[in-house]
C-alpha cells in the first residue's frame, strides 16, 4: 500500500535532498519539487517564529491519502511528502513535496495538486509569533 510513497512528519529540520533522492530513479524523466519555507513577514509585519502543531495520526493518514490520489490520477512513479512540526524560524523549511514522473507535465500538475490539497485537508496548524502578539494562521475570516 505504501509502495512508492514516503510520508514524514518530523520535528527535525527537513532536507530537500532526502525527498529528491527517494523519488529519483532511472525510469523517470522529470521531478518536480515544492519547498515551502517560513517567510520573514506577513502583510508587512515581521515574523519572529512559527509554531506548528499536528494531529499527528490523522495528518499522516491525510498525507497518505493525497499521495495515493496522486499515484491514481497521474502517471507518477514516486512521491515524497515531508512536513515539519515544532518551532520554525524565517527561512526554515516547513514542507517538501517531491514527485517523479516519466514526463514533466505530470510532475508539475501532481506536485501542485499535492500541496494545494495538503493545505486544505491535512490537520496541521501554525501560529505566527510577532514582536507584539501572535495569530493562528487562517483561523478567522
Amino acid at each position: 500500500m505504501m509502495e512508492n510513497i514516503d510520508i514524514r512528519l518530523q520535528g527535525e529540520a527537513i532536507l530537500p535532498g532526502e525527498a529528491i533522492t527517494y523519488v529519483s530513479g532511472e525510469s523517470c524523466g522529470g521531478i518536480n519539487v515544492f519547498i515551502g519555507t517560513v517567510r520573514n513577514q506577513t502583510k508587512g509585519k515581521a515574523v519572529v517564529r512559527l509554531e506548528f502543531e499536528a494531529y499527528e495520526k490523522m495528518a499522516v493518514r491525510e498525507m497518505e491519502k493525497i499521495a495515493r490520489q496522486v499515484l491514481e490520477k497521474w502517471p507518477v512513479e514516486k512521491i515524497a511528502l515531508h512536513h515539519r512540526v515544532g518551532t520554525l524560524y524565517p527561512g526554515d523549511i516547513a514542507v517538501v513535496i517531491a514527485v517523479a514522473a516519466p514526463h514533466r507535465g505530470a510532475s508539475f500538475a501532481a506536485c501542485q495538486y499535492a500541496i494545494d490539497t495538503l493545505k486544505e485537508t491535512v490537520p496541521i496548524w501554525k501560529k505566527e509569533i510577532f514582536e507584539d502578539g501572535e495569530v493562528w494562521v487562517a483561523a478567522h475570516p
Partner: protein
Amino acid sequence: MKITLIAYGIAKEIIGSREISYEISEPASVKTLLEKLEKDYPRLHGLSSLRVAINSEYALGNQAILAMDEVVLIPPVSGG
C-alpha cells in the same frame, strides 16, 4: 454521555485544554455536538470553519458519535 474531546490549534486555546471530558445528550451527532460547543464556547463561532474528526477521519454533520470514539475538533488547517 461523556466523551473525550480533543482540540488543536485555536480550538485548543478556546477550549482551554488539549483534551476535555465533555457531556453531550444522546443520540449524539456531529451536528448536535457542534451546536452545544458553540453555546458553551461562543468564540468557536467566529472561526472560518470548524470540522470534527471521528477516529482520524473527517466526519459529516449527521454522523453519530459513540462514547468510545476519538472526537477531535479541527479548526481551519494551515499546514504547508
